[in-house]
């Protein structure tokens, strides 16, 4: 495990319904783009609905980015981080987009997704993975983005001594769901109603919501896909995008907005609502009640920023996989290394002794 220091980039934990929406895949790509710029780290990836195909998809995408070069779908590159997923022995529910995506084949008829995940025990227990990841981050140096059911967060809250840990480590918590200030949409976060209620009641830090309306107002521009990802004809993100719907289409992007806000909070991309309290109903209804001591806010689209944000979405989500950052050492060791390097450089500059005279 890489040593973290207080200067290590923010560790982003992404709890995602990967493959349920195009947005979920794009948000993961955006996260990798930002990580490639060393603005954050992909600290943990957990999937919040019980379908092993989603874990395989996640593993394949991770392998692509871990390869750092070329198509990278050969399956020889280990996943950058273990994939957590909520487990269920029941047959998974029908997920049309996921089914289309995982069935994608390359020009030679082979499936393009290569993954080592075959069984549940090839994946991690999500709440333990999140807990362990929190412990590996300095205080206030972790962020969490959630897109999809609240299942994993609720089980996380069941762990002993977890509340102080979350409070200490999390800098920001963003949930990509809801219609603000009020409205109805397909249930996402609330599709596990008891879990969602538990999280809204007991989560110890402030929560920022990235609503569906924001995702519609600033979608990912579908027209850019062919050009932006053209450097790799087998790009997994582009392939997943094409599988989403008949091209071209603009994909609503609340999860992308959530990731972008979590990593670049001070860039002024979005406006923030006043504090308040969010409540959900099981049929997908959202209601925001302003309250001075409320711990919830939601993101608001700023018309002046829409174009800028869409550009960032395209640029970062389609960024070429970057080589991993150099191994970071604890400050004391880093200093030693620097001193060694300086000494070596000084030695190099010293003029060599006169060569022995030929006999």
């Amino acid at each position: 495990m890489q040593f973290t220091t207080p200067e290590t980039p923010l560790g982003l934990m992404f709890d995602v319904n990967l493959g349920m929406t195009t947005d979920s895949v794009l948000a993961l790509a955006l996260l990798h783009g930002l990580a490639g710029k060393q603005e954050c780290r992909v600290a943990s990836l957990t999937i919040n609905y019980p379908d092993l195909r989603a874990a395989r998809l996640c593993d394949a995408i991770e392998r692509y980015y871990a390869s750092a070069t070329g198509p990278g779908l050969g399956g020889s590159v280990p996943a950058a981080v273990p994939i957590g997923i909520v487990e269920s022995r029941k047959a998974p529910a029908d997920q049309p987009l996921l089914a289309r995506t995982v069935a994608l084949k390359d020009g030679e008829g082979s499936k393009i997704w290569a993954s080592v995940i075959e069984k549940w025990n090839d994946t991690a227990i999500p709440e333990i993975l999140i807990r362990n990841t929190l412990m590996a981050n300095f205080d206030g140096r972790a962020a969490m983005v959630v897109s999809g059911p609240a299942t994993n967060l609720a089980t996380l809250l069941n762990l002993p001594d977890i509340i102080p840990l979350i409070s200490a480590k999390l800098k920001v918590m963003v949930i990509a769901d809801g219609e603000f200030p009020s409205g109805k949409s397909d249930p996402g976060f609330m599709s596990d109603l008891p879990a969602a209620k538990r999280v809204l009641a007991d989560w110890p830090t402030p929560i920022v919501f990235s609503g569906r309306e924001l995702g519609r107002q600033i979608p990912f521009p579908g027209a850019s896909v062919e050009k932006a990802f053209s450097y790799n004809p087998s790009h997994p993100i582009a392939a997943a995008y094409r599988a989403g719907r008949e091209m071209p289409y603009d994909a609503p992007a609340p999860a992308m907005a959530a990731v972008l806000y979590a990593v670049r909070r001070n860039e002024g991309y979005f406006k923030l609502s006043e504090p308040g309290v969010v409540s959900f109903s099981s049929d997908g209804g959202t209601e925001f009640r302003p309250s001075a001591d409320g711990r919830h806010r939601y993101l608001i689209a700023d018309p002046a920023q829409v174009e800028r944000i869409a550009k960032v979405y395209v640029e970062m989500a389609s960024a070429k996989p970057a080589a991993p950052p150099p191994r970071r050492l604890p400050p004391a060791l880093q200093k030693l290394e620097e001193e060694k390097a300086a000494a070596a450089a000084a030695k190099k500059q010293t003029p060599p002794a006169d060569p022995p005279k030929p006999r």
Partner: protein
Amino acid sequence: MIITRKAVARRTFLRGVGATVALPFLDAMVPALATAATTPKPPVRMAFAYVPNGLNFKDYKLGYEGKLEKLSRILQPLEPYKQDINVLGNLTHNAGRALLDGPGDHGRCSASYLTGLQPRKTMSDIKAGVSFDQIVGQHVGAGTSFNTLELGIEDARQAGDCDSGYSCAYTNNLAWRAEAQPLPPTLNPRALFERLFGDDAALSPEARRRRNLYRRSVLDLVQDEARQLSRDLGPTDQRKLDEYLSSIREIELQLARADKDSISIDPGFEKPYGIPADFAEHFSLMTNMLTVAFQSNLTRVATFLVTREGTSRTYREIGIPDGHHPLTHHRGQEDLVEKVSKINVYHMQQFATWIGKLKAIKEGDSTLLDNCMIVYGAGLADGNRHSHEDLPTIMAGRGGGSFQPGRSIVYRKETPMCNLFLTMMDRMGVPTEHFGDSSGALCGLDGLDLT
């Protein structure tokens, strides 16, 4: 009904002048009119045998789940006992990871192994946590002579820096009575013997050598009582008692050999009195005594630090003059990898021999091994990578009948090792809600198919 058999109390000792010998579990200790339901079950015992520096995973991993079939090279010595072991996969000690403390995996992994907590990175004001063997020992130790036993093989200094700023107290102890109080393992077989069976440990080596000239077997001291007891026992119990007393005699003879070793080998070397020169002999001696201690209910809980984390012990007896720890940082160099595997196999051979002894001892309708939970484990998975997930873990025994061994069980990734401890605490009759970073008891050890 005429009852001719004489009952013997469970806590019966053979007493002589200067010696007290506890008895193993005998049939005569079962009340004559007992039914299956009322028959007292032998107690469940637990022990940990800890090996350092991880294992060579290429030669350790089974690569399959379910019924144990072909064993890997390192597990091969356990082939005769594969119906008595479960091989557990994917257990993780998060507390052994760097988290925010930088290098020092060896120091962390041994200190956190049984405590489940990350130790404070320090060389002076040490702090870990109470290890779970101590918690169990305090609860089940009332009917035994020793709440717990702590054994080891390698010299264990307790101060100084043993790994990147971690005190040697972290690498050289497994058991912790309190968060700042480790329990150093007993290394000297004679000291252990005398702790278990006699009281002349305080004598100097010279005085002991003089005394040994006139030394009588501890069994000589209790022979009158043993003879009298034997007359009251049935043939099965008579044989059991004879075997038990013979095993004590065997240990005495081993100790005598060890004493000879320590006198005859390398006079210039300050070797602790009574420690065998040979690793396998030392391992055998310690585990023989532990077996007797379990058999006679002197203790029910033990930890055995086979060698310490970061050890540079050499194994010339199997042709390896290189230090163990440096070898594990082989960076894939084939000849070094091979040596690591050889050491791993050598350790496993000693463990397998011990398991065989536990299995050979009958306890009612079961064996001593059936009533044990013996964990062979390491705090690092792969010594070259210093990884703390998928820790090598072998559980031998049936835990008093609650485990179904003979399988490879692979848990989900990140499953806390402390979940295994929680399960063992439950089987020891010490149900606990939470220990270390546990998230719940382990499923599958009882035979439930997790695949």
